[in-house]
């Protein structure tokens, strides 16, 4: 069945084919789902009869987890997916809380994963949210991350997106608090005939807030990437800062890289910037490492893994190793 997904708010010429993504998908029907674990916090689990996300897929059944974080702690949620999972995690972090939340997805078989995580931060709270997708190579994943931040809160979201041959990601950050800061770090690798479509949006509504979007990706073989990033300075966001940076490393001559880094501005006293750089691995860096005895392949791997660190600074050691090993496999 044909779907038109991840529709962009800011539209441009149709022939660029970047306004949305057209996909032909054969989505299996959903059964119950019990293969998950939550630690570090109390939670409410239930099945809902309606699911919708900004990506555009809707279902009449989803697995929901509601969490209210009332004290500082580390939280781990993990899912192991068998066939298809439609999950919706709602997290509410109260005022003045510091917490580190990791949500991890794995699968041995090729599966469908449609996911939505919605997190709200109370005043002065500080949260790191790691979303780690380690599903199998030929799975299909549709991840929607949403957040809204109150005064003085700080959210760092790290999306580590490995696995899957069709990946559609959506990020929507609503800075509704003064001096709120949201940072989004995303790393991904695509190869063979993989397709990845990203639509990331940060809306800055109040003064002295900061929004950052950093994406670093590797394209191999005949993979196809579409990136849309938007920083939107809405009137009222005086003295705010918004920056987006996209780095794309091309490891083959047949890959396709499309980018649309958008800056929208309706407020005077702001600092907005975006940068995109696309190309092969830095020759200078390669040469330097090879002159220290590394082979080209080893040097490439090391450079790629070091770039991946933008999203791996606040992750548990075991998981870090798992991720690095997976990256090693892929490159």
């Amino acid at each position, binding site marked *: 069945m044909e779907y038109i997904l991840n529709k962009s708010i800011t539209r*441009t010429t149709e022939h660029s084919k970047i306004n949305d993504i057209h996909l032909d998908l054969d989505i299996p029907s959903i059964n119950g789902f019990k293969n998950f674990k939550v630690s570090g916090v109390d939670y409410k689990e239930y099945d809902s009869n309606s699911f919708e996300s900004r990506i555009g897929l809707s279902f009449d059944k989803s697995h929901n987890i509601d969490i209210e974080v009332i004290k500082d702690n580390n939280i781990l949620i993990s899912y192991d997916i068998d066939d298809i999972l439609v999950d919706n995690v709602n997290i509410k972090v109260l005022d003045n809380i510091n917490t580190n939340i990791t949500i991890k997805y794995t699968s041995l078989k090729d599966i469908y994963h449609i996911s939505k995580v919605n997190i709200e931060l109370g005043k002065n709270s500080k949260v790191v949210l790691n979303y780690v997708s380690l599903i199998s190579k030929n799975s299909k994943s549709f991840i929607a991350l949403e957040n809204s931040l109150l005064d003085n809160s700080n959210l760092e979201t790290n999306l580590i997106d490995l696995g899957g041959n069709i990946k559609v990601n959506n990020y929507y950050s609503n800075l509704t608090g003064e001096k709120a800061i949201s940072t989004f770090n995303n790393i991904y690798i695509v190869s063979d005939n993989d397709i990845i479509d990203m639509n990331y949006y940060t809306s800055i509504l109040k003064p002295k807030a900061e929004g950052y979007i950093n994406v670093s990706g590797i394209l191999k073989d005949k993979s196809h990437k579409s990136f849309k990033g938007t920083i939107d300075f809405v*009137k009222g966001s005086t003295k705010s800062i918004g920056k987006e940076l996209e780095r794309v490393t091309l490891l083959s001559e047949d890959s396709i890289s*499309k980018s649309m880094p958008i800056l*929208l501005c309706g407020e*005077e006293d702001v600092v*907005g910037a*975006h940068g995109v750089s696309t190309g092969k691995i830095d020759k200078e860096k390669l040469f330097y490492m090879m002159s220290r005895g590394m082979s080209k392949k080893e040097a490439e791997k090391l450079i790629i893994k070091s770039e991946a660190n933008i999203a791996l600074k606040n992750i548990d050691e075991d998981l870090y190793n798992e991720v690095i090993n997976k990256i090693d496999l892929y490159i």
Partner: protein
Amino acid sequence: MAKTQVSIDTNIYNIKAKDESILKTYGLTEKVVKEISKLKDEPSWILDIRLKALKLFYEMDNPTWGPDLKLLDIERIATYVKPNSNMERNWEDIPTEIKTTFDRLGIPEAEKKSLSGVGAQFDSEMVYHNLEEELSKKGVIYTNFDEAIHKYPELFKKYFMKAVPINDHKYIALHYALFSGGSFIYIPKGVKLDMPLQSYFRLNAPGAGQFEHTLIIVEDDASLEFIEGCSAPGYNELNLHAGCVELFVGENAYLRFSTIENWSRNMLNLNTKKCIVSKGGKIEWITGSFGSKISMLYPLSILNGEGATCEYTGISFAGNGQNLDTGLKVILNAPKTNLFVNSKSISKDGGICTFRSNVDVKPNASKANLALSCESLMLDSISRSDTIPFNDIRCDDITFSHEATIGKISDDMIFYLMSRGLDEEEAKALIVRGFAEPISKSFPIEYAVEMNRLINLELEGTIG
């Protein structure tokens, strides 16, 4: 208050010459198109193109993105306005009304000082064309469009519509139905002009449309600098500019195409410009957009030969009621091609500036080198500045970087200048002119001075 009023009164662009046109057509029908063609005594194959384009215009839709074009009611646009003058080669022979307008805009003066040739178009027809004797002898052709169709048919047929096809978009179809006036320029192999050629387009009749077509061919190893100036006085009715520019740059040839646009605030500017660059050739676009109510301008450069280069330097200044949606499109279709973009925009008093770009790097563009930079200045909180760049990259062996920044005039800069005796408004004006300097310095001095004047006029809009 007084300051602003004085500026508007002495705004030389706002002179309205008495409308002495001897023919006007309104609306868009087969009859109108046939009438225009008959008046120009065109060969039948041109009329066929016009009629085909007319059909396409009614079949095609407005774009689904960008500024809203619903305002445009083609029935109310004067689609052809013949001024009361024939094509003259001698400035003195032009009818007084028309001559006065151009005199006040400084056109013949500029010619005497720093141009190789001048063309002046008033409403729908060229009224003046002059080319240095020497250049004619070298084989340089600079003539108006109608004459080109009759005098150089092979050359004309070889290039006409080869860059911009008839169905490119709705307003090109409109253009090909109604095109009138414009310049035809041919620079033969190896000829390098050391002073620029200039065309000036002036829309005088209220509610008129301008559909000029400019065709420039620069053969291998030749070089040309071309300056285009456009303006119209302010009326309440809507004026439409749906012109077309087709440029061909030969091997190792060079073309600098400079435009200062100061259409009045009732103008819809939907101009189309395309350039095809051959091996080793270079196209330089220099653009200053100050006027018009709505502008949609995306010059397209197709880099078709190894080592072809496109450089784009542009500034837009949107004030009250203006929506300037500009940018560029480039297709890199050969190895070692280059793209350098330096785009600046200023938004003020509720003006909207949008930078929209489309960069296509094809798989065969190995060792291509691209650097794009966009800077936007917001002068208050009621205006808008949006940057919407799109890149499609299909070759890995390239160097590509794109940066954009948005901000306001830094407080530190203002304080520094104030500590040297400038008051706040003067400091801002100096900083804004400095911001625009990379563009103004690319124009001949008269235009640079003019551009600074335009910037000052725009800035003064808020005083009082």
